[in-house]
Structure formats: structure tokens, C-alpha cells
């Protein structure tokens, strides 16, 4: 008798048990009455939704329709509206002929983000790349030098704006977060209190309230005559918001560093900043890389909130595309399109963070 376990050779023909797929089916989907019930329920759910969605997405959809009237004749999705509006959604109201500039800026930012993911570049040169990419992106977007026409930032929009809000947000919130985290762990009561109050205050209120604050309160804070434009104010709000969350994540990493490391550094006679820079932070930051990537994803999604104060990011650009009278009634298609854009970014970041977590974890294994 060399039958597989749990298989009664008399009731199951030997051909069946040899078929791997059937074996898989039996163990994975129909191993118990409850499991069978769950499988059938899920299958029913899938059958009720998936075919209808496939119909809508692909089979009954149209990409080539030239007008909204043509689109209304089909029962599925009207992807023609995306074809028609993609420039508006991706680049907002940036001057049409100049839209290669935001495209190039987007690619630059994406490039530096991807570069940051490669471990070979995790050294000082990365900082240099970031400075170059961010300034190049700013020059491309603004123009005014090297023969590029000047484009004021109220005309920026779409994907580059979303990317800029999040990359600048991360780039500036990160150092601020480190300082706040160190401050919260400081032995000096006054500095500790200031940091705790800041972190808890920011984490206790929604981002919207900070954005509102940047939109209506910040102008009142500044001396008369000095004005900062709306985009920069929103960017400041995002940086201040993200810094509080980053501080808490980094603090988690600092807490995980054994006391011996601090004492060892002390016994070497290092100053506080040398200790942090050379011994504590490199270890602490490495521990918190996965949760930091999680924060970056959250921040990327949160930049969509600037819609509420009327900044022309990807989401707002989508809403602008909906307004056109000639193409009314295809909101779902447009929302699905930008959802897909957000999804691609966030999903690849989260997959990256998972693989990183695995790689970093193996390093500690002996």
C-alpha cells in the first residue's frame, strides 16, 4: 500500500489521486464541509461580480469613440474619455506645448526614487542625486532660465504635482523627523516637552485641518506684505504633518537600540552628535526602513487631500476633467484611471518594502 495519506484507495481511483491539480483542489478547496461551503460562497461571489466587471472593463468598452454620444451607445466603459483627457489629467493646465517639461520632471523624480531603492546607492552620493534631481525638477517646472519660458506654479498640476508634493514632503520631513525623535528621547526636560507637544498635537488632528490652517491661517501669521503662495503653504503643512509621524517611527527604531551601544559610544568619548551620527542613527534607521516606506506610501496617498483647498494635484485634475460638458457622465472611468495610477505607485512601494524587510531580516540570522 503506497497510497497518499488521507486517500482511501478503494474509493478514489488511482488515476485521480495522481493528478496533481485534483489533489490540490481537494486539499486546498474542499478539505472539510466548512471549507467547501466557503469555496462555494466565494465562487458565487466571484461569478456574480467578475464577469460583469470584465464586460464593463473590456468586452463592452470602447477606446476609439470620438464623442460622448458615441460612447453612450456602448454599455461598457468609455475609455475614450481617458484618451481625450489624459493630458489634462496627467499635467493639469500646464501650457500644452510645454508639457514635455513636467513629463521630464516626473521621470527625473521617479528616477531618483527608484535609485533610492537600490542598496548600492545607499551612501552619501544619494544625497547628491536628490539635490540634483529636486533642483532640476524645480527648474524644469518653473523655467525662466536656460531659455525655458516661465510658468507660474498656479498652472502646475496633475501627476508631477502629486509627485513633487510627496517627494519634497519626504525629503524635508525626514531630517525634521529625526531631530524631533532625538528631541523626544532627550534628557533635557524642556526640549523633550516641546517635542512631545509638537508630535502629539500634529498626530491628534487630521491633515485637512492643517491644510485649512495653511490656506487661511498662515497668511495671518506672516508680517504684512509678505505672502507665500498657496502651493508652498500646502507643502509646508504636509512637511510639518509628515515629520510628526516620521518622528514616532524613528523613535521606535531608537528605542530598539540596546543600551550597550550608547554606553560603548560614551566610553569612547564621543560627543552626543558623533554618537548619534556614527553609531545610533545608522542602526536605528536601518531597523525602521520598512515602516518608513509604509509612511511614504501613506504620505503619497495623503497628498490627494490638497484637493480640498483647491490645489491642482492628480485628483483635482481628474475632477477638472469631469467638468467638461461635452464629456459628462464618465466619472467612473476617470476615477478608475487615476486609482490605477495611485495603485501602481503604492503597490510597487509596498512590494519593495516587503522584499526589503526580508533581505534586512536575513542579515541578522546567524
Amino acid at each position, binding site marked *: 500500500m503506497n497510497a497518499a495519506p488521507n486517500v482511501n484507495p478503494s474509493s478514489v481511483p488511482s488515476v485521480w489521486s495522481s493528478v496533481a491539480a485534483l489533489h*490540490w483542489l481537494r486539499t*486546498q*478547496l474542499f*478539505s472539510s464541509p466548512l*471549507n467547501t461551503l*466557503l*469555496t462555494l460562497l*466565494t*465562487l458565487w*461571489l*466571484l461569478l456574480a461580480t467578475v464577469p460583469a466587471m470584465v464586460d464593463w472593463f473590456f468586452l463592452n468598452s470602447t477606446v476609439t469613440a470620438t464623442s460622448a454620444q458615441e460612447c453612450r451607445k456602448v454599455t461598457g466603459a468609455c475609455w475614450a474619455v481617458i484618451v481625450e483627457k489624459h493630458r489634462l489629467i496627467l499635467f493639469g493646465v500646464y501650457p500644452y506645448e510645454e508639457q514635455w517639461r513636467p513629463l521630464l520632471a516626473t521621470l527625473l523624480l521617479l528616477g531618483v526614487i527608484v535609485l533610492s531603492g537600490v542598496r548600492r546607492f545607499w551612501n552619501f552620493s544619494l544625497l547628491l542625486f536628490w539635490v540634483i534631481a529636486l533642483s532640476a525638477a524645480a527648474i524644469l517646472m518653473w523655467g525662466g532660465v536656460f531659455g525655458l519660458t516661465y510658468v507660474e506654479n498656479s498652472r502646475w498640476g496633475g501627476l508631477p504635482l502629486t509627485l513633487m508634493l510627496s517627494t519634497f514632503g519626504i525629503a524635508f520631513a525626514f531630517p525634521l523627523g529625526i531631530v524631533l525623535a532625538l528631541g523626544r528621547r532627550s*534628557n*533635557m*526636560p*524642556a*526640549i523633550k516637552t*516641546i517635542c512631545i507637544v509638537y508630535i502629539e*498635537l500634529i*498626530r*491628534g*488632528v*487630521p*491633515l*485637512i*485641518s492643517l491644510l*485649512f*490652517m495653511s490656506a*487661511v*491661517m498662515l*497668511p*495671518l*501669521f*506672516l*508680517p*504684512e506684505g509678505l505672502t507665500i503662495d498657496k502651493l508652498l503653504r500646502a507643502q509646508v503643512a504636509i512637511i510639518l504633518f509628515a515629520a510628526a509621524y516620521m518622528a514616532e517611527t524613528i523613535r521606535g527604531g531608537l528605542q530598539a537600540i540596546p543600551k550597550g551601544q550608547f554606553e560603548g559610544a560614551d566610553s569612547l568619548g564621543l560627543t552626543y552628535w558623533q554618537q548619534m551620527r556614527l553609531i545610533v542613527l545608522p542602526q536605528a534607521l536601518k531597523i525602521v526602513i520598512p515602516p518608513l516606506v509604509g509612511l511614504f*506610501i501613506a504620505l503619497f*496617498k*495623503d497628498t*490627494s*487631500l490638497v*484637493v*480640498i483647498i483647491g490645489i491642482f494635484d492628480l*485628483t483635482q485634475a481628474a*475632477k477638472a476633467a469631469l467638468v467638461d460638458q461635452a464629456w459628462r*457622465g464618465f*466619472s*467612473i472611468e476617470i*476615477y*478608475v484611471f*487615476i*486609482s490605477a495610477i*495611485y*495603485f501602481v505607485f*503604492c*503597490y510597487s512601494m*509596498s512590494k519593495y518594502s516587503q522584499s526589503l524587510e526580508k533581505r534586512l531580516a536575513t542579515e541578522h540570522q546567524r
Partner: protein
Amino acid sequence: MLNIKPTAVAQAPKKRLSWNNPEVRAIVYQVLAVALVVGAGWYLVHNTLHNLSVRNINTGFDFLTREAGFAIGEGMISFTPADTYQRAITVGVLNTLRVALLGILFATILGTIIGIARLSKNWLVRTVCSVYVEVMRNIPLLLQLFFWYVILIETMPGPRRAYHPMPGVFVSNRGIQMPTVHGDGLTWLLVGLALAVVLCLVLRRWARRRQEQTGQVFALGRVAIALLLLTPTLAWWLSGAQLSLDVPELKGFNFAGGMTLTPEFAALLFGLVIYTSAFIAEVVRSGIQSVHRGQWEAAGALGIKNSLVLRLVVLPQALRVIIPPMTSQYLNITKNSSLAVAIGYPDLVSVINTTLNQTGQAIEGILMIMAAYLTVSLSISVFMNWYNKRIALVER
């Protein structure tokens, strides 16, 4: 007996006022930091007061007692444009609390089910749940809210051709109509339920004490279910069995009777629940996975049956891991409910936004928003910290 005395008492080092003394440095740094913060604060307040006086804006909360003059779409207490701003803001607070509490409730239920299902042995269930989690948590909540709102407003038919998925429930572009229960019996039903809950708690204490003293186990679960079902029914029956179902009906162009979930509320609730449940599922999954396999096996070796292993061995340990991130998810729902302003559900932020547009009292309005959310956030975290401490591992 040896009596060793130190030959010389170590002399405390003399405090010197020098830059090399860390205490002196600490004091200087702190004074500088406080001076910087206070100075910046004073500068901002000074600028603000100056700007306000230039623009002729009065400060203070006097505007709260003035007539609001705008209508609010829905609320738990009545509101007319003739009411004060104060009442408008109360309506907003109640609306925020309503959507946040319901959101927490449903997201916890859905998230827990999906989190457990992701650990299922069933490939199909596992995969479907993973896809759900990955899709939902990687699309911004705001976009999901727009999406649900558009689906309810634009693609649903009018009231006359409303979808009718089950008796008494209608889905149309006016929202979702549901039947409600009302009558005197309802109060008694609730009284009965409260009584049953109290009885169950008392019984649990007694059963636990008896088990500690005599070792006898009391079948609490069955008795509790019986109590929870019977007591309200009894109360309702004793009170004269007055209870009627208010079913919505199509009258003319709209529905009458029953309860309406407006498209705004329904979209916000759907969005919050679906988005947050994906995160809660991950929290629950990692919590259960954090319990070592050895715990299951050891409990099995003791001959404890599976359902009890889950309740007595695994869950108490998993909860310790689950509670802190769950707290932050609850806080997130509360804060994220402020996105209501984007789809026009009259929550706190939306009402205050209207208020500050009308009155120009920007600073007061934003301070009120922040104070309200801080209060809610702090009270949720105080409660969850208390609960966390209660279930925390007691070590030596």
C-alpha cells in the same frame, strides 16, 4: 563580623560653571530652545493681531450665538437656518461621531473576518481576501469616497426605478432607504437588553469565582445567549408587545417612512469601512501570526479543544500585539471622517468650513476643529491605553 568602613567618603565633585559641564550645557540649550519657541510664538501672535486689526476682523467666540443662516442636510438633532452657529457646530460634531463610531464598528467586524480569512487553509478565500486588502489600502481614501459617491449619485436609478435588493430596502440616487422599528416596545426591548448584559457580567464574575474555588466549569456561553435573547423578548411581551415596523414606501417622487441613509453618509461610511477594514485585516493577521506555533501545539498536547485554544491561549496573546495598532486605526477613522467635507456630508469640518467662510473667523474655526479632534483622539487613546494595560503581560 567584618565591619569595613570606607576610609574616605568620596567627595562630591565641585560644581563648576564651565562649558565642559554637561548640566550647564543642558540648561543653556534648554533656555535657548524655550526662548526660540516662545519668541516664534510671540512673533506669530503679534503678526496675527496686527493683520487682524488691519483687516478689521474681530476675534473671539461671540459669533457662536449669532444666527447661522445656512441649512444642514442631515443631523441627529433638528436644525434650521434660524438656529445659532453653536447649534450648527453641535450638529456637525454629532454627525462626525455618528459616522466615526459606525465606521469603527463595521470596519472592525469586516477587518477581523478578512484578517482571519487571509490565514485560511482555503486557497480561494485566502487569495480573494489578499486581493481585496492590496487593492483597497493602495488607493487613496479620498478617491474611494469620490468613487462611491459618484456610483450612488450618478449610476443609481431614480426613486421610481430604485433597486430593491431585499424587502423594505431601496437603493436609489436619493440614498439607501431602510425599514426602522418604532413604538413603546422598543424602549422596553432596549431596557431588557441592558438588563441582560448586566446579568451576564454578574454571572461571569460568579462563574469565575466558583471555578477558582471548586474547579467546576459553568456553561456561561449558552446561558448568556439565552439571557440575551429571552430578557428583551420578555420585556417587550410584558410591555404589551407594541412594536411596529416602519417600511419605506414610494410616494409620488420620493420615499416616505423608514430610515434614509443619504448618499453622502452612505458613501462616507462605505469608503471609511472598506478602506480601514483592509488595514485592520492586516493588523489582525499579523497579530494572530505573532503567536508562536508552539502555543497551539502545547495547548493541543494538554488536550484542550481547538475553540478553547483560540479563546484561552491564542487570542489573549494576539490581542497584546493587536491592540496598539488597532488603536491607531480607530484614531485614523475618526480623523479620516473629516474627508466628509469633500463629498458634502455635514461633519464638523464641513460645518465649520461653512461657518468660517461666512463669518471670516478663520482662527477660531480652525482652533475649534483642532480642539475637537484632539479631544476625541486623546480620549480614544486614553481608553485604549487603559485597556492595553489591563491585558498587558504582567512580568516580575
